């Protein structure tokens, strides 16, 4: 057994190459920055964090992109992916022109068409759906700001249904759980005040492997000054390696640990009594509810010794209220995820950390008036009451439920617009779902910069230009300081790609709905909006980022009553709303399913080099991380006779197999689990770098647990085994 692993995880050195011996007449390349340098403000779009930066060009060629010093999202420093953002502009595999599915001599194929033809086709199909089924039967799936323009167009047409998969496949449980408890969610960027925390608890959250920029910066700042970091994870993650306590929990048992922590805080009277008395309701019910869940009980579920449960609970109480029980972000795990997020929210309330320095702060955004435009018509039906009637507490689209409502002849939805989200790899077993939906839908329009699995199902593919080639909505996110940031083109769009606003406006024009886009150029909207708040487009093109004065307090004002946006006006430890809809008003523990003999919990996560599957083909980021590996504990590796560097197929209990994936044997994981980075295993050959490398976790998910409160997909209840192969990825 290896006692020490030594791995270069990035950067192959060039020294090993064999090159000719004698040279002459080489000249050193000119030093960077000695040519003609120009700069343009931008807002990064490599992930949803939307950091503001500056794009540098030298002698008319792209050079580098760096973070904007005045931006609270990035504090002057972009992350790995943002630094490699130019690769998305330079990627030779980008979508180049509109494509239309046609019947060719050898079956269906994509035919390059003009924008006018593409818009005509879309408008005709939309009108046909409107006539046959109703104008409310189109749905929008969107991840990213440009989706808003398609939403405007669809609302004008009469269809109001939309979903961000980032709700039902990611942070929906957290927003719902915190919303039920505090009357508002955590938001994005997350309102965690780690800069001031004295104790931080991460539950399955691997900040640092996900590079949510200001989250990483504030966490590492806290680590640098010796914060008491407690990490709960079946894997020795990067933050686990920085922690005073790594709790290598049995997968799926987090709720048991949370209940035991509440039990200790309450029974040892270490909770914030004043805060609970002043701001919370339902404490007595909670105190009675957690009595059975002592650390000895939790030990049997979680594998964490009772003494460590007590010790960590006491550490949280000692640092309170500057203790952050981190809400996590990707929280769709086991199906009881809203309840687990509720438990996290409740634990924070017991520690008095919401609204307090070192816990959760209050955010504020700029009050930016909307550009004057007509109000859209009232849709013919309330789609949520029809499609999402089982989830009455949810006010947004549940992507998996909407996909299901698109399959079959009597399905509600008849057409889709899909903006910048690769649903086949986003949804569990998404390929199968797409296959079915594609047979039912009368129209599927996909808007993206890159070809991907989803574009293969489209009737029409619309190539969007990258963030470095377009104006977009102003970035106006709630933050510590209200701030606006401008995205503007550094380059002319390559090929025949166009910005989303232009496409949505063009389709609206074909539908006779041009009045909903009352501008020729989106710059008019930006300038108008900026002038309403005392700036202008000309100013923003110079400064990139502008901060505005704060009007509300950052923290709760001590001693003053607080009105929470809940039915009781208090922090609801006991949730009457959940009780009304037949759900548990206090969080309960459900033991997780256990893997069959020879199978392992399938855990997945992020890498600092990539954003889901969206950046694998980015040449700069591909070079940094060209494939994923499956992490296997040495004991499990011995059972299957595999060593680091071998390739295996992962196989789930239904016999579904992954592409070949490289094995990494490591002590950094529990023997009952495997881990892999999500986003690899692309099957679309048009992404020439990403195609065929590594494995896709989403395709292996066979045991998807639907959250009864928010309807999302619990993605961490699946199992896989390893099948050795000689085939390399």
């Amino acid at each position: 057994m290896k006692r020490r692993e030594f791995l270069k995880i990035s950067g192959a050195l060039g020294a090993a190459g064999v090159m000719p011996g004698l040279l002459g007449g080489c000249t050193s390349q000119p030093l960077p920055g000695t040519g003609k340098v120009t700069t343009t403000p931008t807002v990064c779009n490599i992930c949803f964090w939307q950091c503001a930066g500056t794009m540098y060009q030298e002698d008319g060629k792209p050079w580098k992109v760096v973070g904007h010093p005045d931006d609270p999202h990035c504090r002057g420093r972009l992350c790995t992916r943002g630094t490699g953002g130019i690769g998305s502009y330079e990627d030779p595999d980008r979508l180049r022109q509109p494509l239309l599915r046609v019947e060719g001599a050898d079956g269906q194929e994509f035919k390059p068409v003009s924008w006018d033809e593409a818009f005509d086709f879309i408008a005709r199909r939309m009108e046909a759906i409107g006539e046959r089924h109703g104008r409310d039967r189109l749905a929008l799936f969107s991840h990213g700001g440009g989706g808003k323009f398609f939403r405007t167009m669809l609302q004008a047409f009469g269809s109001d249904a939309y979903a961000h998969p980032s709700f039902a496949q990611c942070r929906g449980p957290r927003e719902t759980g915190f919303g039920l408890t505090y009357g508002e969610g955590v938001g994005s960027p997350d309102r965690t005040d780690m800069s001031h925390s004295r104790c931080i608890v991460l539950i399955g959250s691997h900040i640092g492997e996900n590079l949510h920029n200001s989250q990483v910066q504030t966490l590492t700042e806290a680590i640098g000054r010796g914060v008491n970091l407690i990490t709960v994870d079946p894997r020795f993650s990067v933050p686990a390696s920085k922690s005073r306590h790594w709790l290598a929990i049995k997968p799926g048992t987090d709720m048991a640990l949370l209940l035991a922590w509440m039990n200790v805080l309450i029974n040892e009277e270490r909770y914030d009594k004043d805060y609970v008395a002043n701001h919370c309701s339902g404490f007595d019910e909670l105190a009675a509810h957690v009595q059975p869940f002592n650390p000895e009980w939790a030990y049997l579920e979680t594998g964490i010794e009772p003494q460590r449960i007590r010790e960590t609970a006491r550490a949280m109480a000692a640092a309170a209220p500057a203790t952050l029980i981190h809400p996590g972000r990707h929280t769709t795990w086991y199906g009881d995820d809203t309840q687990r997020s509720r438990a996290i929210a409740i634990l924070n309330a017991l520690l008095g950390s919401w609204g307090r320095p070192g816990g959760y702060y209050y955010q504020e955004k700029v009050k930016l008036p909307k550009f004057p435009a007509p109000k859209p018509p009232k849709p013919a039906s309330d789609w949520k009451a029809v499609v999402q009637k089982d989830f009455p507490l949810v006010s947004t689209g549940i992507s998996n439920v909407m996909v299901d409502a698109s399959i079959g002849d009597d399905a509600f939805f008849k057409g889709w617009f899909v903006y910048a989200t690769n649903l086949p790899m986003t949804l569990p077993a998404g390929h199968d779902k797409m296959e079915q939906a594609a047979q039912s839908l009368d129209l599927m329009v996909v808007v993206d910069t890159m070809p991907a699995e989803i574009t293969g199902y489209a009737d029409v593919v619309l190539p969007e230009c990258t963030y470095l080639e377009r104006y977009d909505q102003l970035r106006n996110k709630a933050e510590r300081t209200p701030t606006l940031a401008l995205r503007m083109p550094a380059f002319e769009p390559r090929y025949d790609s166009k910005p989303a606003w232009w496409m949505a406006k063009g389709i609206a024009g074909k539908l006779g709905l041009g009045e909903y886009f009352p501008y020729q150029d989106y710059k008019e909207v930006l300038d108008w909006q900026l002038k309403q708040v005392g700036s202008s487009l000309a100013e923003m093109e110079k400064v990139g980022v502008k901060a505005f004065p704060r009007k509300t307090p950052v923290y709760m004002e001590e001693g003053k009553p607080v009105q929470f946006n809940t039915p009781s006006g208090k922090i609801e430890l006991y949730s009457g709303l959940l009780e009304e809809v037949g759900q548990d008003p206090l969080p309960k523990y459900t033991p997780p399913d256990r893997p069959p003999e020879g199978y392992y919990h399938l855990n997945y996560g992020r890498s600092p080099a990539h954003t889901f599957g969206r950046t694998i083909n980015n040449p700069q980021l591909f070079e940094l991380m060209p494939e994923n590996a499956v992490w296997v504990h040495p004991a499990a590796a011995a059972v299957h006779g595999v060593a680091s560097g071998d390739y295996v197929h992962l196989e789930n209990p239904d016999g579904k197999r992954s592409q070949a994936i490289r094995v990494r044997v490591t002590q950094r994981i529990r023997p009952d689990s495997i881990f892999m980075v999500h986003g690899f295993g692309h099957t679309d050959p048009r992404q020439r770098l990403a195609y065929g490398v590594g494995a896709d976790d989403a395709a292996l998910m066979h045991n998807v647990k639907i959250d009864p409160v928010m309807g999302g997909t619990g993605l961490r209840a699946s199992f896989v085994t390893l099948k050795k192969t000689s085939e390399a990825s």
Partner: protein
Amino acid sequence: MTTYAMVIDTITCIGCGDCVVACKTENKVPEGLNRDWVVEATSGEYPNLHTEFRSERCNHCSHATCVYACPTGASHYWKDTNIVLVAAEKCTGCKACIAACPYDARLIMRPEGYIDKCTFCHHRVDDGLDPACVASCPTHCMHFGMLDNPDSIVSRLLRERRHKALLPETGNEPNVYYLL
């Protein structure tokens, strides 16, 4: 003689590789080549583990064996500092420096074949800026400055924190330090 040093805090480094990408874009390093890289070193047995991340590069040694090994004078110290550079026009591609470097920190430029390496971004140092890797790091774990100045951030950190350098036994006197 001015001695520049880099001090990297392994307590806060997360091994994200931003330094690698920032170096490549700043210095326009060709595809497939790198001047810096990240190492992950794990020791111990589950569940008692220690993992250290290190951003590594040329150590700009005060006694740089690569400079002494170079038969043409292509490898040289920049101005009156410890920053080791390669003058491409003097480089014959003989690779003596590669053999002499204890850190495997040199690369062969494609397609020309001359030897290239980390420059501590001396073009930025001239302007009073940190090297691109230091300036991009989202964890602020990397620091750069003059060792000769007792008030510099690097001098202060080395005074106050436990640290190590890589392969000091070579006698090369490396100038990249890791805080522990």
